[in-house]
């Protein structure tokens, strides 16, 4: 890492012990740590790198764990777990709009049998579907019978599909053996605090051992159980990712401490997500005016934790019944009525053939990036810029500016092109903006970027972007993102050096909230 990591004194003092613990945890998981840097070398990087083959095999086709895999592989969530055992101030279980996209929300509840049929139907239609997750809409482990019955049915009929679940962790220690029994190899725990005083501001209550606890007492129980569960998973070699919701003024600074706590207990990836708190969702935070972070605030926190551990940047905060590639939702094609009528032909060979083709694409893409990285060899500059990319996937610049529902954001430096996030630019579900406003919406969402890479762009938006100081780039249409971005950046540095242009820092950008809606 060439970026200095700013942390508080307490962390510096304990860094020696932490390093020893981390090394232990990493060795246990088969991940190496490199030299004086305590960052484990596995997680969300673009390729295998120096990641041990065993871990790489587990994460490479998992869209929620590998930043690169999510361009190629799809996941689905089945909503078999409606009950929850805690209350979070960012959740309102009553809200359900078909256009709504955020965790905790589904359109219909499934039985384990319906869920199993749905998984087979989707896997037969979408061969790149490799992952089945249970994420709610409540907590999977507050509905253990339904959750594990679903896993049992799917592991019998579609053994090649990876199983994972996402939990608040309250009852996790009680279910670790069963999680291991069904070969669930990925578990996500949402950990927003390790300090119960902060927890009391996020969780009004937990229901534990037949009793409702509130305040600091509730948060103490929750954090104890979460960390115990994480340790138990690590001991059994089950990969564990930690999700944290960044709530400015409540836990934003504290998440650095959370990062340290989960890293030391063996979590292999940390996903810090922005709070979703639109007032129309009716959550406590939405109603009391608690804001979410700006794009710069989110990135700064992710960057400050990255010195310690791999950070996930591509989370789309999916619905609990999402189907398809991240960022797209095909759940409407697979309602219970439709799947019960479908003739399902689960053809493992077709799936394997498709996935082999995807592997070829991935290898070509990585090769292109490596080749272009050589072009940056010898370049030394402190300049870092962000670039937005319109893409439909496959690692290519292949989306029209006006059709993009989201932009991927890469940080460009002499170290290369690094994926650091994505920005949604679709319209709000309710109220909404007119077409005439959509361009300013896009500009607000990518306002921190120096350039936007597109396959095509009209004359009007082009001049508006230029006026806003964002360079619209369409000369790399249908080429690889990272290779093109590096070429552009090299040219940018040359123009700055020659005095043709002046390097100016960009401002902040908005993180869009609300529904993901289809562009007609």
């Amino acid at each position: 890492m060439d970026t200095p990591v700013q942390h508080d004194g307490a962390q510096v003092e304990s860094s020696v012990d932490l390093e020893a613990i981390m090394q232990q945890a990493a060795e246990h998981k088969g991940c190496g740590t490199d030299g004086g840097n305590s960052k484990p070398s596995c997680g969300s990087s673009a390729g295998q790198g120096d990641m041990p083959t065993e871990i790489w095999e587990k994460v490479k086709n998992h869209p929620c764990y590998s930043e690169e895999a999510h361009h190629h592989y799809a996941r689905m969530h089945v909503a078999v777990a409606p009950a929850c055992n805690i209350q979070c101030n960012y959740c309102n279980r009553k809200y359900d709009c078909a256009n709504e996209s955020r965790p905790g929300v589904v359109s219909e509840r499934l039985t384990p049998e319906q869920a199993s049929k749905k998984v087979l139907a989707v896997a037969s239609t979408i061969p790149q579907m490799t992952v089945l997750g249970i994420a709610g809409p409540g907590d999977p482990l507050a509905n253990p019978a339904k959750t594990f019955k679903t896993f049992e049915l799917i592991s019998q009929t579609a053994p090649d599909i990876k199983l994972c679940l996402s939990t608040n962790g309250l009852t996790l220690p009680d279910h670790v053996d069963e999680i291991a029994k069904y070969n669930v190899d990925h578990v996500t725990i949402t950990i927003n605090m390790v300090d119960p005083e902060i927890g009391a501001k996020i969780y009004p209550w937990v229901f534990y051992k037949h009793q409702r606890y509130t305040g600091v007492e509730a948060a103490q129980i929750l954090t104890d159980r979460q960390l115990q569960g994480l340790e138990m998973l690590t001991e059994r070699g089950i990969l564990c990712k930690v999700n944290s919701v960044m709530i400015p003024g409540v836990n934003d600074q504290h998440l650095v401490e959370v990062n340290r706590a989960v890293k030391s207990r063996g979590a292999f990836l940390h996903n810090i997500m922005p709070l979703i708190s639109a007032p129309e969702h009716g959550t406590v935070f939405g109603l009391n005016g608690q804001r979410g972070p700006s794009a710069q605030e989110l990135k700064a926190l992710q960057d400050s934790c990255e010195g310690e551990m791999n950070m996930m940047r591509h989370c789309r905060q999916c619905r609990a019944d999402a189907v398809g590639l991240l960022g797209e939702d095909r759940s409407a094609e697979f309602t219970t009525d439709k799947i019960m009528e479908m003739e399902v032909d689960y053809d493992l060979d077709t799936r394997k053939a498709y996935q082999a083709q995807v592997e070829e694409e991935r290898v070509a893409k990585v090769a292109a990036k490596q080749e272009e990285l050589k072009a940056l060899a010898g370049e030394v500059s402190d300049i870092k810029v962000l670039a937005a990319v319109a893409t439909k996937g496959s690692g290519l610049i292949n989306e029209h500016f006006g059709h993009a529902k989201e932009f991927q954001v890469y940080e460009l430096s002499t170290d290369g092109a690094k994926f650091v996030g994505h920005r949604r630019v679709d319209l709000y579900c309710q109220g909404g903006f007119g077409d005439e406003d959509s361009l300013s919406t896009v500009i607000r969402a990518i306002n921190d970027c120096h350039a936007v890479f597109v396959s095509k762009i009209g004359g009007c938006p082009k001049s508006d972007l230029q006026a806003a100081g964002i360079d619209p780039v369409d000369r790399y249409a249908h080429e690889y993102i990272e290779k093109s971005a590096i070429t552009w950046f090299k040219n940018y540095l040359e123009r700055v050096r020659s005095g043709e242009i002046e390097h100016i820092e960009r401002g902040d950008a908005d993180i869009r909230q609300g529904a993901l809606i289809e562009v007609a």
Partner: protein
Amino acid sequence: MAFKIIASQCTNCTACEAECPNLAISEKGGTFIIDPEKCTECIGHFDSPQCEAVCPVDDTCVIDQNFPRYQAAQ
């Protein structure tokens, strides 16, 4: 006497059904209902009524004033 569920507020999340020690809760017409014949307000089972404690919406599992309070067998 018994608890009842305010149907207009029920999110249909099923949490109460699994917690009821008397198996008094079942799904009906898209939401959940409590059988007043079976409900004991959790007296003799737990310190607090389980449906009320686990319900995600406040004031949704409430005492039904149409019935006398439950009396534990002496």
